[in-house]
């Protein structure tokens, strides 16, 4: 019998962990001599108070949904993929190569091709760590960390030596052709006769991210492969006994994970900058870890957590703009969320379990 009802496990513990992280963050803000309530108000106004704010919040949310799903899928196979950053970087390379390869006539054709490029490159970058984990037993956490650095070096080389247009000093690719321009949400709203979110980067990729959430949910809980991934994640010996190949599941789960991380590049590279720049990912791969932990590796949870981090990200930018609180506060909040929802999970869980047991005993008596 479970010690706690399911709702307490799924909703109550992450909420308490989040609350603890927020309290400590407030103390940090107090410690640097600023007012936490003012900070919160600035963040809410800046991120959610206008369609302009929402436009950026949802743009960041889109990035974090992809990287969060990437971490979540791997986690179901009990693989900890820290390589989302590198996979998204290399996914960006895939997008750039596709977009620059042809004079695309219309985004409707360019988008599927670029998605394939992004997912393939991201998945390929996850393949070697996956293979080494499955076949040689090399720890996936270490190899994916190493691959993040190798990806950064590779991208630096490619941008400086291969993709940089002649005469340009900037380590960035040429601009993508006009035909690869993705419709922004503001254009779509204008087509419906509404004015919404002018000059914001959120684009059609946001809807692709939502579809990805649904597809991941279907994959994990409604397909045979998803069952095998979960079974393998829960117990490798049991999965092997049931005839599930550990090598196959490890590789497939990591390919899907890498592909999802790579797909993020559709949003930031093709949707926003429309060229490949150095450090395009901006740490979104790492935020995916916090998002997946916070969302309990469930696609809906990932969506909500991505929204929360989108808010924090945009709100953090506004803080830096309007107050004297530096943007790096967001990294601290992110660290605290990872710490409390991930590593210190038992600190919240153990007293809660004791509480529920005590309540149940009283109920029985």
């Amino acid at each position, binding site marked *: 019998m479970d010690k706690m009802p399911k709702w307490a496990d799924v909703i109550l513990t992450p909420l308490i962990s989040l609350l603890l992280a927020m309290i400590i963050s407030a103390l*940090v803000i107090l410690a*640097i*001599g600023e007012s936490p309530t003012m900070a919160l108000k600035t963040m809410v106004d800046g991120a959610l108070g206008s369609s302009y704010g929402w436009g950026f919040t949802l743009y960041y949310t889109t990035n974090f949904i992809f990287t969060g799903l990437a971490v979540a899928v791997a986690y179901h196979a009990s693989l*900890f993929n*820290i390589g989302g950053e590198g996979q998204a970087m290399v996914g960006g390379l895939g997008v750039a190569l596709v977009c620059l390869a042809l004079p695309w006539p219309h985004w409707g054709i360019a988008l599927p091709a670029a998605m394939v490029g992004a997912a393939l490159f991201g998945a390929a970058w996850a393949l*070697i760590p996956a293979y*080494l984990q499955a076949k*040689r*037993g*090399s*720890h996936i*956490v*270490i*190899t994916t*960390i*190493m*691959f993040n*650095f*190798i990806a950064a*070096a*590779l991208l*630096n*080389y490619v941008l*400086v*030596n291969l993709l940089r247009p002649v005469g340009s000093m900037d380590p960035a690719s040429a601009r993508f052709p006009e035909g690869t321009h993705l419709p922004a949400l503001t254009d779509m709203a204008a087509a419906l006769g509404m004015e919404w979110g002018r000059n914001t980067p959120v684009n059609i990729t946001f809807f692709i991210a939502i579809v990805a959430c649904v597809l991941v949910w279907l994959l994990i809980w409604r397909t045979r492969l998803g069952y095998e991934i979960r079974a393998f994640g829960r117990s490798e010996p049991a999965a092997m006994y049931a005839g599930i190949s550990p090598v196959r599941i490890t590789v497939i789960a990591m390919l899907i994970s890498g592909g999802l991380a790579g797909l993020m590049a559709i949003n930031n590279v093709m949707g926003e900058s429309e060229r490949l720049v150095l450090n395009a990912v901006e740490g979104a791969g*790492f935020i995916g*870890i916090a998002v997946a*932990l916070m969302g309990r590796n469930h696609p809906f949870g990932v969506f909500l957590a991505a929204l929360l981090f989108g808010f924090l990200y945009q709100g953090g930018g506004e803080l830096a703009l309007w107050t004297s609180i*530096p943007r*790096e*506060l*967001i*990294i*601290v*909040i*992110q*660290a*605290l969320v*990872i*710490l409390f929802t*991930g*590593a*210190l*999970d*038992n*600190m919240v869980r*153990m007293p809660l379990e004791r509480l529920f047991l005590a309540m149940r005993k009283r109920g029985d008596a």
Partner: protein
Amino acid sequence: MDFATIIQILDSAVRLMTPLLLACLAGLYSERSGVFDIGLEGKMLMAAFTSASVAFVTGSAWLGLLAGIAGSMALSLIHGLASITFRGNQLISGVAINFLASGMTVLLGIKIFGLGGRTPALTDGGRFNEVTLPFADALRDVPFLGPIYSELISGHTILVYVAFALVPLTWWVLFRTRFGLRLRAVGENPASVDTAGVSVTRLRFAAIALAGILCGLAGAYLATGLSAGFVKEMTAGRGFIALAALIFAKWRPWSALFATFLFGLLEAIANRYPNLDLGIVTVPSMFMNALPYILTVIILAGFVGRAIPPRAGGEPYVKER
């Protein structure tokens, strides 16, 4: 390339390997006791910041060093609390520590000094000065051995010599003392140590505290020895290179010395020759920078001598069920 250039490159390699060596030994203690530590980077960064800040305010590099150790130790304790006391995931805790350091150092740096995350440049007293070993000047003109002694061996800060001395010391502690035997046992089979009546928790906390001290030394060296002050993200992945070196060295102290020297040398060569011309091919600096990571992946893959981590690494110890 003449003899003087080789000496210069080796000298630079020694400087660059020192933080790697200290962090690598920190990871060695922690991981030998069964606690994975991917938070080396964060601890070094925090130590670099606290040491540079205190060294600037007090004008004393030694007080800075103490502050560096304290800053690193604080993060070590968080890691211990999460991964030993509350039996959380050690990897996730390490990730959190890296972000915590990355955010806090800049946040505090901007608030205290208002220089966009830097600390003011340290002047003489705030830095560790170069130590000139006895007779270094007198022997300078001796052919071959003279430059090696006076340029390569002499003329580093005290922390460099400390780091090198820590290698045999670590070997002795790990393989010749009772504490070391227990530390290794707790990383392989904590239940056996527990059965013998020794506290697993206490041993692991001791190991993590040692890691905190060593990362503190590494960070203090970065900020007050190698450069003159703290700069945002100044560790620049060195914690992860140290982790790579640890795997490369297969969790052994003497091998750690050679692994970190190799990685330091790679960095020194990449700094000196941004585009290394080998006649047939030109090696870009990006490749040299990525080489430690690539080599580690190859070692991890087990194609060139297999790297087997301590068996109980990464698993929290549950005393009773």
